[in-house]
Structures are given as structure tokens and as C-alpha cells.
């Protein structure tokens, strides 16, 4: 049997390697980690979520996801490293232990498996899902424009060939609908962090409107603290703010929907880098990226733990 300890975190991996490793992680930490399937993708790949739980029923929870945009490989790699970190720090790190003693963590590492498999087999720079709709010229939908929050408004494209195509209707993508169903049936998710790359940003809602969220001040303060923690490790510079004021108008985005569902601590990251490699960040930067991101994630998770609502 392979051990999760021999896995090379400083390398990029295929979906099969990641899924195999998830099983090993579960085997190595059976009382903490389990794997649940929340649905299946358009091409029938399982959508797996790692659940980190020390017990209790329907505890308040934190959701993390990586890889909703297929070509952002640093995010899947960060997700793998983070899963291992959570598992290995429980019982060692007082902060992680305290989080897991009162909350569950859910982590979806390969959020867009069809797209990710396609980046390994056919087109390394593929971003979208792989769904086909009759009448559409091109394949795939941008799963970060497919949520029911300002769906189809400015900040998404109605052209199927565009990288920001919003899809025929909200939640048309099973990869999105599965998370929607999971979040709604769980009903007790208190923090939701969706991880993208690149450009070094920590963002909170909204993307589809300039209207400030009611919790803007608190989210802004948490962002400042998280970014300070992140930068403390390697000096990586992040900007933070609402999506629409910091990057651009984007409708149908993940965390706009989660915020509107009542998940106050909704954030999205854009990981390294500032513009030397873009989506082709060299593998030797995986661990440093994951390490610095972890510090910011911890700030957000701790804040959620200490400010349950």
C-alpha cells in the first residue's frame, strides 16, 4: 500500500493520481477524513469531496474548493497539499485542532474533473467544463458564470465559444448543481472559499453588482488580516476587495451565490503569480504557494470559528 507521506506534493498530477491519493489519505486518517461523492460530472466522472470531521451531527462547516477552472493547475496542487496539511495538523496545531473540534471542513480538489482531464489529454489551456448543448457552436461552460446570482447579466458571455460563456441556464452544469444541492442540503456552511489562479487577489462579493454587501466592512477586515498573514511568509503581495471593484464585473459567480444563500464568509482567491508564468506556474512553486495560502485560509477559518452566526 502506498502512503500519503510518499506523495510528491511538489509536482503536478493527473486526476487519477489525485483521486488515488485521496483514498490513501482517507486510509491514513480514517477517524478524521472521509470521501464523499456529491454528484457526477457531465462526462460521468465522480465529484469527490474530502470531509474532515471529528464527529457530531451537521456541525457548522467550512467549504473549500479548487480547480473549478481546469487550467489553473496550481489550485488543484494547492488543494492536495492543503488536504494533507489539515489531516496532519489535527492534534498537532492548536488552531487547526480547535477548528476541527467544533467545525467540519469540506474540500473539493477537482471541482471540474472533465475540464481537468482534458487539460492533461488534449488542451493544457482548457478552462471550462466539457458540456455540449444542441445549437451551441462550441463546447463547455464557464462554471464560474453558471451560478444563480445575477446569472446572464453583464460580466458573462452568451456566446458558447467565449471563455466566460454562462451556459444555457443557471446551474446547467452538473459540477455547479452538485455543489448547490450539497450546500443547500447541508444548511450549516458558515464559510465558503473558492480558489482560483492567478493575479494574487483575495476577493469577497459582489461581482455582479456594485452594491456593497451588508458585511463589507467585516469581510474587508478579515481579508486584510488574511493577506497580511499570507504575505508574512514570502512577501507575496496581494490586493483585496470586492470582485467588481478589484477585478471586473462578473455575473453568475460562485461566491455571489453562496453569500446570497446566507454564507457570510464567502471568499475567492487568485493565487500566484504576478505575471511571469500565468497558468504555467512551475511545479517548484507549488509548495511555497500552498504554504502561504494556508496562512490566509487559517485566518478565514479561525474567524469563522470565532464568529459563528
Amino acid at each position: 500500500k502506498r502512503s500519503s507521506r510518499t506523495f510528491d506534493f511538489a509536482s503536478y498530477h493527473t486526476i487519477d493520481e489525485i483521486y488515488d491519493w485521496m483514498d490513501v489519505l482517507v486510509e491514513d486518517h480514517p477517524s478524521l477524513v472521509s470521501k464523499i461523492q456529491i454528484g457526477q460530472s457531465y462526462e460521468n466522472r465522480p465529484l469527490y469531496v474530502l470531509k474532515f470531521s471529528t464527529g457530531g451531527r451537521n456541525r457548522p462547516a467550512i467549504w473549500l474548493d479548487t480547480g473549478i477552472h481546469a487550467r489553473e493547475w496550481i489550485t488543484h496542487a494547492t488543494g492536495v497539499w492543503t488536504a494533507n496539511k489539515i489531516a496532519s495538523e489535527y492534534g498537532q496545531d492548536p488552531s487547526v485542532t480547535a477548528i476541527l473540534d467544533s467545525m467540519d471542513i469540506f474540500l473539493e480538489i477537482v471541482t471540474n474533473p472533465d475540464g481537468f482531464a482534458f487539460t492533461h489529454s488534449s488542451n493544457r489551456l482548457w478552462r471550462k467544463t466539457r458540456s455540449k448543448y444542441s445549437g451551441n457552436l462550441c463546447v463547455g461552460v464557464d462554471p464560474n458564470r453558471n451560478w444563480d446570482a445575477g446569472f446572464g447579466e453583464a460580466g458573462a458571455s452568451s456566446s458558447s465559444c467565449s471563455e466566460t460563456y454562462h451556459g444555457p441556464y443557471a446551474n446547467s452544469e452538473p459540477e455547479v448543481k452538485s455543489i448547490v444541492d450539497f450546500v443547500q442540503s447541508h444548511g450549516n456552511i458558515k464559510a465558503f472559499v473558492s480558489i482560483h489562479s492567478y493575479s494574487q487577489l483575495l476577493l469577497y462579493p459582489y461581482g455582479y453588482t456594485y452594491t456593497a454587501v451588508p458585511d463589507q466592512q467585516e469581510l474587508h477586515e478579515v481579508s486584510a488580516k488574511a493577506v497580511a498573514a499570507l504575505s508574512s511568509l514570502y512577501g507575496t503581495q496581494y490586493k483585496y476587495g470586492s470582485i467588481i471593484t478589484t477585478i471586473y464585473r462578473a455575473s453568475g459567480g460562485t461566491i455571489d451565490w453562496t453569500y446570497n444563500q446566507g454564507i457570510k464568509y464567502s471568499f475567492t482567491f487568485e493565487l500566484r503569480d504576478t505575471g511571469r508564468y500565468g497558468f504555467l506556474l512551475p511545479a517548484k512553486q507549488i509548495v511555497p504557494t500552498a504554504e502561504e495560502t494556508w496562512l490566509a485560509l487559517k485566518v478565514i477559518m479561525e474567524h469563522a470559528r470565532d464568529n459563528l452566526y
Partner: protein
Amino acid sequence: QQLFVGDQVLRVSARNEEQISLLGVLGEQEELQVDFWRHPNSPGHPVDLRVPFLTLQGVKKFLDFHNFSYSIMIEDVQELLDEEKESMRRSRRI
């Protein structure tokens, strides 16, 4: 498998709203197949675009004509992809 030999990623800086709009126009010209890695936002923010080898000359001409300042962020996308593949192969072997 799609190859990206000779494709470049350009980092473009837009000085004003007019130039932001021009980048939007560039993106709408489907025959140029420009792939925005970082979208136009507001003046001063860098914009990154991957340009296929076949349309590189046309895109650079467009940028020059409209007085954009830009630099080449990735000289040859395929070279980086080959390195990435080799690094994965090495890791798997180990």
C-alpha cells in the same frame, strides 16, 4: 493534442478607458483567437493575453498602431509546457 508552438503571452498595459475598449474589440475579433489570461479591467491594471503564433503579427500590429505599451511575458508557451511535462514525468519515475 493541441500544441502551442510559438504562441506568446503578452502583458499589455492600457493607459485609459479608450485603450480598455480597444482591447475589448481585439478580443471580439474571433479570427485572431486571442485568449485573455487577465482581462481588461481599468487603466493601469496589466492585461495578459495569449496569442497564437499564426496571429501574433496581426495582434502586435494592432497594439503598435494604437500605441499600447506591452512586453512579452512568455516567449514560447509550448516550451514551458514541455518543461512542465518533463517535470511530471521525472516525478512519476522517482
